[in-house]
């Protein structure tokens, strides 16, 4: 019974172990060049620029489009697959960085 309770509480607490990685967009640049993350982690894209960004990825590992958002807004992505995720900005083509997602 105790073992069962222990395992149950461990399973329930696992999502709480997922990390949130904050990546800022400032001066048309991401605050990181590469990011090491784990399955289930979230990446919070925070726009610290005085103009909009549109963050997206077309990677086979995980594709997403966060849409256009303004200064002060943060948009999140939960990393759902292992592999390499190349992140770009549709408004500023020179902005790129890579997320390496592991178990």
């Amino acid at each position: 019974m105790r073992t069962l309770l222990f395992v149950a509480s461990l399973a329930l607490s696992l999502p709480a172990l997922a990390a949130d990685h904050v990546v800022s967009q400032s001066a048309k640049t991401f605050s990181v060049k590469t990011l090491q993350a784990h399955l289930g982690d979230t990446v919070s894209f925070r726009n610290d620029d005085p103009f909009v960004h549109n963050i997206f990825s077309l990677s086979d590992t995980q594709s997403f489009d966060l849409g256009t958002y303004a200064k002060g807004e943060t948009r999140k992505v939960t990393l759902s697959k292992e592999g390499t995720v190349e992140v770009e900005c549709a408004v500023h083509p020179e902005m790129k960085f890579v997320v390496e997602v592991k178990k």
Partner: protein
Amino acid sequence: MIRWRITAHVPTFVAAFALTVVFPCESRADGHTENGGRGAAVFSKYCVLCHGANGKGDGRAVSLQKVPPANLTISPRSLAYKVQIIRKGGGAMGRSAGMPAWNGVLSEEELAEVAAYVHSLRNRALSAKTDRSIVGSR
């Protein structure tokens, strides 16, 4: 005497030739240029992601869009409309919010040039279609 008259005009011919080499791109009022000029460069940098290299709405980010990017080669919109939608974005014009507002990203000059280039894509497509129909009728 005739030889002297011809040689007197040589500098003029040389200058005229030099100008055509230095400025090969003549921009017409309808935005059509021989090679697109700066408008094409802006388009290539910012627009091909969604609209594709030829403006047909088949860029690599198409799969992410809820509403397909416009096929600019068949767009019936005026040049003035295109300037506005590039400046304000699709949402502000009652179209897809997938089209960002480029005001603040592009200078007014770049905005005008890329709009003229985008407008010329339809003219080029129509010209190509006319040429094909002429060849086909021969």
